[in-house]
């Protein structure tokens, strides 16, 4: 302990050092106390917040740049003509869909006034009472113009979310890998068996033959539903009865299970999920992806030779795919729900030229999507927006016959997800998993109160 005594005796200068530190600390504490004043004030007033995962952000990706610009232009146009201003708040996609931020904000009653919503989340938000009825703010004709695409956002004939895009799923493949494996155009699979065969021929140690989504989540369910539907399977029938425990369910689960167990499909995503670099790096031959990758290829790998084909069907099955896409919503517990709803209607729900052009620009210039409104789809096509071979294929062959992503609430989602994960990755039997999932969905629907699940 003597050592310490000496220390104290010697440490004259360091004591001064500590005093300096204390001074810095006091200043810092004072500064932070002052800074705290500006917090809540900013949010109130005559400005509404629009949380989204596009803008404002800086990025070198020309596609993402165009998307960000579209949002900025949209809000600028609104702000120029309206007293209540709108402010864009950017939340990165990874944290928007899978994060703490939105749920905390909504739970604490300080959610955004306007926000983007995916079909998978629709019922949770609707039943939570935060979605404003947008019907009064949308032109009558527009509702017909949207057609089926509003179904999953409608409750009792009222529209609660306006889709900005329709995103069908298909299979992308690398032409180089295809040729290297001695395959030709004629080998494009149209049945599940052919798909597995082709995947098997394409795979190597460092190249996945065929990629299905592996991470548990709403997205994985979304990509699996088409395989369920193709065999006539349903989670819930038209009347809302549980129909999950069926032959079609088992065969769809079996397809993914076989693909993984025979080593055709990988257990994790190549290139940590970055589709472009996985394809260009030669680590994947076929990957089930959405129409959005067309614009990614266009901006990041314009010279890369890829192809797209429709999801193959099981014996006796009928072609379909799942249609995703996000929509605009107005928070009914926000600062000014009427103006927020008015904004959504103004942005996407008018029969005006300006409004239709806006959607065309989003779906064909900023992104690569099928336009949810017929007029916009036609106008986009007339303007050459679907002339590119891949876009044409999506519009003419892949999207028709597709079904909107269902809006099942969390418990239903989780039951299906566990069945997919259990059979695909843990080697569990498809019979028991289908049965178990059906039972938990059954138990849930019996006590469920809220808007129709289908």
């Amino acid at each position, binding site marked *: 302990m003597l050592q310490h*005594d*000496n220390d*104290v*005796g010697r440490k004259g200068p360091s004591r001064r050092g500590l005093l300096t530190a204390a001074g810095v600390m006091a200043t810092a504490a004072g500064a932070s106390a002052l800074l705290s004043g500006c917090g809540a004030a900013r949010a109130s007033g005559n400005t509404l917040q629009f949380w989204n995962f596009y803008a404002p952000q800086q990025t070198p990706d020309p596609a993402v740049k165009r998307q960000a610009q579209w949002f900025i232009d949209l809000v600028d146009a609104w702000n120029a003509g309206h007293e209540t201003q709108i402010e864009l708040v950017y939340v990165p996609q990874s944290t928007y869909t*899978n*994060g*703490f931020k939105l*749920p*905390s904000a*909504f*739970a*604490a*009653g300080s*959610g955004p006034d306007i926000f983007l919503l995916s079909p998978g989340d629709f019922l*949770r*938000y609707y*039943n*939570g*009472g*935060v979605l404003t009825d947008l019907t009064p703010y949308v032109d009558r004709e527009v509702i017909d113009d949207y057609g089926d695409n509003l179904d999953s956002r409608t409750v009792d004939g009222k529209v609660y979310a306006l889709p900005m895009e329709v995103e069908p799923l298909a299979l992308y493949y690398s032409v180089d890998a295809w040729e290297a494996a001695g395959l030709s155009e004629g080998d494009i699979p149209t049945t599940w068996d052919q798909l597995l065969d082709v995947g098997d021929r394409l795979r190597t*140690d*460092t*190249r*996945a033959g065929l990629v299905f989504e*592996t*991470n*548990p*989540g709403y997205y994985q369910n979304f990509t699996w539903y088409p395989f369920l539907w193709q065999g006539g399977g349903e989670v819930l029938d038209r009347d809302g009865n549980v129909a999950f425990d069926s032959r079609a369910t088992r065969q769809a689960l079996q397809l993914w299970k076989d693909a993984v167990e025979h080593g055709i499909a*990988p*257990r*994790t995503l*190549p*290139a*940590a999920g970055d589709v472009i670099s996985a394809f260009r*790096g030669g*680590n994947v031959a076929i990957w089930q992806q959405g129409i959005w990758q067309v614009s990614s290829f266009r901006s990041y790998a314009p010279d890369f030779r890829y192809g797209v084909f429709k999801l193959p069907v099981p014996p006796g099955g009928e072609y379909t795919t799942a249609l995703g896409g996000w929509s605009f919503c107005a928070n009914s*517990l926000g600062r000014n729900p009427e103006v927020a709803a008015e904004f959504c209607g103004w942005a996407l729900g008018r029969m005006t030229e300006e409004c239709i052009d806006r959607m065309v620009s989003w779906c064909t210039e900023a992104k690569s999507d099928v336009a949810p409104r017929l007029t916009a789809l036609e106008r986009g096509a007339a303007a050459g927006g679907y002339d590119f071979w891949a876009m044409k294929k999506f519009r003419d062959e892949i999207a028709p016959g597709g079904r909107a992503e269902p809006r099942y609430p*969390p*418990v239903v989602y*989780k039951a299906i997800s*566990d069945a997919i*994960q*259990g059979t*695909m*990755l*843990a080697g*569990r039997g498809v019979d028991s998993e289908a049965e178990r999932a059906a039972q938990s969905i059954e138990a849930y629907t019996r006590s469920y109160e809220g808007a129709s699940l289908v």
Partner: protein
Amino acid sequence: MTTSTTTRAVAVPRPAAKGRRRRLSRKHREWVAAGLFLAPDAIGLLIFVALPMVLSILLSFYQVSGFGSYTWVGLGNYERMMHDPLFWDSMRITGIYVLVLVPVLFCVSLGLGLLIKQRLPGLAAYRTALFLPYVISLVVVGQLWKFMLDDQTGLVNRTLRAAGFEGRSWLGDPDLALGSVIAVTVWVMMGYYMIIFLAGLQDIPKEYYEAARIDGAGPWTSFRRITWPLLRPTSFFVLLMSTVAALTGGLDLVFVLTNGGPANGTSLAIFYIYQQAFGFGEFGYAAAMGSFLVLIMVAFSALIFALTRGGRFDHDD
């Protein structure tokens, strides 16, 4: 110290003169001082830790929609928890995680501490190298290991294949994924606990080892008779801290590495709680499970305290 020693010598007569009155007031002065010294942290902990915990317990008696509506359900959430197979599954996984992680981490960091304690040339370099992973944020660490453990191009599988083995799906196989998460956690944390062990080890007087060596004790005997008993307070600290960290942590890594998969194979209790709260908006239910987890930890710590008589860090002066 010389100055204060002299003043002390001068001051000695003073307390003798006013002894009794001063001592009493001094005692009270000490109480007041203690209160003032404790106040900033106590108030802060009360507002930012204890109050949220109390609110969270209150929340556990409500059904919460996630959008500001609360319905009193009494013990409903706890009842649901008792009958939720996914929750108990996640508790089982947490149990395995803690039971494997804590001893492995303990042994690895102690081993590294013992290794680094040998005055090897380039000591600072090893020390820095081993602490390096702890410097990087867990989100980045998770991402990094996702690349290293990639099925096709990951360095681990490439190395295995080059050596003539088959690659494995380290994060996609339910039998391996939890092990991979544990291995990554050990990789991140070993340097941190190594430093703590190292400090404890260097505090053991060298003369003891010297004496033991002269007496002919081998390294194992030295370790068993000198290092291990003298290191007990450090070991206790590491054990307690790493257990608490294991029970409540792991969320960031699981989130990035596996998102709870494959097939719920890495769905730790804390991840399941997160999923219920922030994924499904079931804040009341999540609060119930969270409170239950905190209760388990309180019981566990009490047990450890009782078993080790406070881990000997309560030695009175």
